[in-house]
């Protein structure tokens, strides 16, 4: 059995280098076919009639006029009369017709009567939430009362918060469904091609073996695309009734309202330190909503193991579209709610926040030393010590400049995964597993791992993914994909190579263990003159291909293994604020990020760049605005639900942490962690610039101006 390790650092020809995304050409040419782009023969277009009320009971549904419309092929009632609807935009009736336009006409002809029920859609004021508040139990560590009152203690108190934001994937949620007898093929827009098949089987009441799921490209997910969803099953029902394939993609408005969001979190926080800057106590009362289910509890204080704590969290049930995992669930909120008070504490202590963090670094747990080093690196890249000033930029003119910092952590251990690597007699190589590339570079990583292991160029590898008939590999969630699939692929490739060595060793007159695969050759270690080209070697297979499996059980705890868990990073931001207009401009963000062994430096860096930009979006612009009167989302579109554009991003500096010790930890996921800190770094930089805390994200001009008007806590 081969030894399942990564190649020695410094010996690789592809791993850790800057390799182009292998599916880049398909994407830049527009040839990549996403679910939204699929057109199956005879395909119909599906749409959903949705409930306009935030809380209501369906009294009656009349679809007769829609059914009479020429071109309409199927109508399917998703939620029957009597059902209580919990959020505006929930699915009621699905329709399929020959064109999208006729489907729209049909939807307009459906008559539904509702009994309206009282709703709550806003949660930022805890006092107004009434019986919708579900408090969790209070948690106490140490003796917070004593710690807050101890002599020589400095205390800061403040309120901080982040609103609900949506995923706003550019490809909306949806799928194509196509039946052949009692077998159904679903083309989903999904982060888990394999797992979603089982969900369809269950919802449709067909044997799991009758469901095929296929997807090559998905236009973003960020955590929101892991379920079949009611609209998915409805699409399959329409296809069955119509006897034709149906494509049902959500409208942008619907996607914003019902297809996922990140829970809000608000908190009243008290934080104490001794006068010399030793952090001693934390107290928080926090609340937030993730829709009807309430929402999760952010892990605060984030990372910091403050000895004395009292905290209580309440979830508020609102009549809003339910939350879904949003890139690093709960962490951006927890990070913001922790790192902002720490920054305020530094201001009150008249300390540079970098000094405060370094002074208390031992509270950062097992990763403390790495954080210290990463802080130093980030400070160097930001020229922190040269540029830092006490809170409030005193320079003349309306443009005020400031800097902020934050740190974060994430798991990211590889999920379980199985892979098959085939080596064919003609020399071609196939890698097959049911994973998906959600834009993170999974295809590229798998290609690199196989090519590196077999000593071949990336072009020699053919990859099959996105089909639930391939060996199973989990959802792309929790940054668990890269660790899992790169490990199973490494194992399968090593197993396949071992078989090839067994076949060709006799012809080179050596034992299989003496062989290596390098530069397109199978050669004898230490004696490169004894070699076969890859094609000569595989020709010796005769007519039988090698097909070998690799199984990765999940993360492995020991150093030197293929994947482990736990990453971290430090970020710093430099912003300018116009105190006359309240406009915040990001000048620069530095991100220092560790993530174990990096397979492709180019796409890894892209993950961090992308996370920083998404971070700028939620720090400065993004906010779901709910209207309590109508119970509807007011900005369920992309004009008023703002995302940053190219002109908004400033200079981004990404530094991947690649010391040998980290690389020996194996491959660990990266997609989520760098999106955690931007809220805190940008907000802290704004406070540093203007001298007062703007307590709530996003840092829009009205909020900045309001904070300036009120003055500050410092």
């Amino acid at each position, binding site marked *: 059995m081969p030894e399942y390790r990564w190649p020695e650092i410094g010996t690789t020809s592809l791993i850790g280098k800057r390799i182009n*995304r292998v599916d880049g*050409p398909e994407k830049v*040419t527009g040839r990549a076919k996403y679910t939204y782009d699929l057109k199956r023969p005879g395909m119909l277009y599906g749409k959903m009639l949705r409930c306009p009320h935030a809380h209501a009971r369906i009294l009656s549904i009349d679809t007769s006029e829609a059914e*009479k419309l020429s071109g309409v092929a199927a109508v399917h009632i998703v939620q029957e009369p009597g059902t209580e609807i919990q959020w505006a935009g929930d699915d009621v009736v699905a329709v399929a017709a020959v064109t999208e336009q006729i489907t729209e006409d049909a939807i307009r002809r459906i008559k539904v009567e509702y009994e309206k029920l009282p709703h709550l859609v806003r949660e930022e004021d805890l006092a107004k939430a009434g019986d919708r508040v579900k408090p969790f139990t209070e948690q106490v560590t140490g003796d917070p009362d004593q710690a807050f009152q101890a002599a020589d203690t400095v205390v800061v108190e403040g309120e901080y918060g982040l609103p609900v934001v949506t995923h706003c994937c*550019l490809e909306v949620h949806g799928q194509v469904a196509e039946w052949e007898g009692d077998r159904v093929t679903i083309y989903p827009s999904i982060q888990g091609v394999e797992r979603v098949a089982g969900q369809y089987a269950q919802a449709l009441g067909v044997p799991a073996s009758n469901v095929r799921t296929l997807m090559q490209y998905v236009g973003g997910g960020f955590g929101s695309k892991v379920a079949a969803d009611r609209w998915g099953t409805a699409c399959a029902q329409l296809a069955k009734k119509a006897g034709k394939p149906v494509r049902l993609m959500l409208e942008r408005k619907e996607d914003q309202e019902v297809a996922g969001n990140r829970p809000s979190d608000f908190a009243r926080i008290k934080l104490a330190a001794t006068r010399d800057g030793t952090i001693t106590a934390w107290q928080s009362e926090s609340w937030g909503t993730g829709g009807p289910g309430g929402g999760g509890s952010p892990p605060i204080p984030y990372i910091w193991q403050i000895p004395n704590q009292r905290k209580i969290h309440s979830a508020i049930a609102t009549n809003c579209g339910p939350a879904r995992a949003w890139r690093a669930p709960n962490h951006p909120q927890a990070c913001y709610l922790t790192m902002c008070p720490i920054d305020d504490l530094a201001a009150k202590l008249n300390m540079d926040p970098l000094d405060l963090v370094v002074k208390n670094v031992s509270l950062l747990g097992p990763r403390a030393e790495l954080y210290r080093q990463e802080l130093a690196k980030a400070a160097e890249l930001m020229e922190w010590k040269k540029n830092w000033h006490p809170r409030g930029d005193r320079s003349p003119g309306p443009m005020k400049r400031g800097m902020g910092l934050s740190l974060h952590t994430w798991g990211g251990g590889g999920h379980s995964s199985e892979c098959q690597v085939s080596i064919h007699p003609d020399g071609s190589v196939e890698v097959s597993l049911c994973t998906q590339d*959600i834009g993170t570079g999974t295809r590229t990583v798998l290609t690199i791992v196989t090519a590196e292991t077999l000593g071949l160029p990336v072009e020699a590898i053919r990859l099959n993914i996105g089909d639930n008939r391939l060996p199973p590999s989990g959802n792309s969630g929790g940054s668990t994909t890269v660790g899992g699939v790169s490990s199973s692929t490494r194992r399968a490739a090593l197993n396949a190579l071992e078989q090839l060595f067994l076949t060709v060793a006799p012809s080179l007159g050596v034992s299989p263990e003496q062989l290596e695969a390098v530069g397109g050759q199978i050669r004898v270690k230490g004696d490169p003159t004894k070699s076969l080209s890859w094609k000569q070697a595989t020709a010796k297979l005769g007519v039988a291909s090698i097909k070998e499996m690799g199984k990765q059980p999940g993360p492995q705890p020991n150093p030197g293994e293929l994947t482990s868990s736990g990453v971290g990073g430090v970020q710093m931001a430099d912003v300018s604020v116009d105190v006359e207009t309240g406009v915040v401009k990001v000048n620069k963000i530095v991100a220092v990020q560790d993530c174990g062994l990096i397979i492709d430096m180019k796409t890894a860096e892209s993950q961090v760049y992308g996370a920083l930009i998404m971070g700028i979006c939620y720090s400065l612009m993004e906010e779901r605005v709910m209207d309590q009167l109508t119970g509807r989302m007011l900005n369920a579109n992309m004009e008023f639900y703002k995302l940053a554009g*190219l002109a908004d991003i400033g200079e981004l500096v990404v530094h991947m942490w690649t010391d040998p010790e980290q690389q020996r930890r194996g491959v660990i996921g990266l997609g989520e962690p760098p999106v955690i800190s931007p809220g805190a770094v940008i907000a802290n930089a704004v406070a540093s610039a203007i001298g007062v805390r703007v307590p709530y994200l996003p840092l829009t001009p009205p909020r900045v101006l309001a904070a300036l008007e009120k003055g500050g806590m410092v």
Partner: protein
Amino acid sequence: MRDQKNKPTSDKRKRGISRRKFLKGVGLGSGVLSSGILGGPLLPEASAVAQAAEVEVAGPTPAPIELTVNGQRKNLRLEPRVTLLEALRDWLDMTGAKKVCDRATCGACTVILDGQPVYSCSVLAIESQGKNIQTVESLAQGDSLHPLQAAFVENDAQQCGFCTPGFVVAAKAFLDKYPNPTREQARLGLGGNLCRCGTYAGIWKAVLEAATGRRDSQRGIGQGGGSNA
């Protein structure tokens, strides 16, 4: 109910209105019938339209529409409310341009219309007749990428890739107009497109690099907005 597809063309004539005028009128927007924009000699026809609209709740029937896409004539029968984006995607199966916001905000649907970049989600197919429509599909020649596309790949200016074709087309139109942009011009000139994965840093670099490449090679390939540039 009438069958939209097989409706005989002759019954329009009974109402004394040419199909083309009828559809153009409606194509201007839904307010047109009531707002009196159709005045003068068109008035009698407009009232015929109003009558027809009363009968036909489902809307005007498909009409012959000819589009010139990447230098090729395409003959379609489309309802006048069909947008250029829908015509390209649902009728011509040219799916490089994406539907994302459907409201002229994100640029994922960008195509070049007579040399100008437009949001094709907000242009009717019927209004695009007689114009030169250039889509992302025209840029690469087989496996050989347009230099701008190559620069996108080289700078990893795509993640999920859903915004990418729109960005490529917008960048192409931008560079056709500003062959030697400054960093600042590029920063502002590419502001009409949105990306959720956050690929702006790569896009910015790619566009500047592609511009430099053009200056260096000056072969006239890929410039000037010709339909297959």
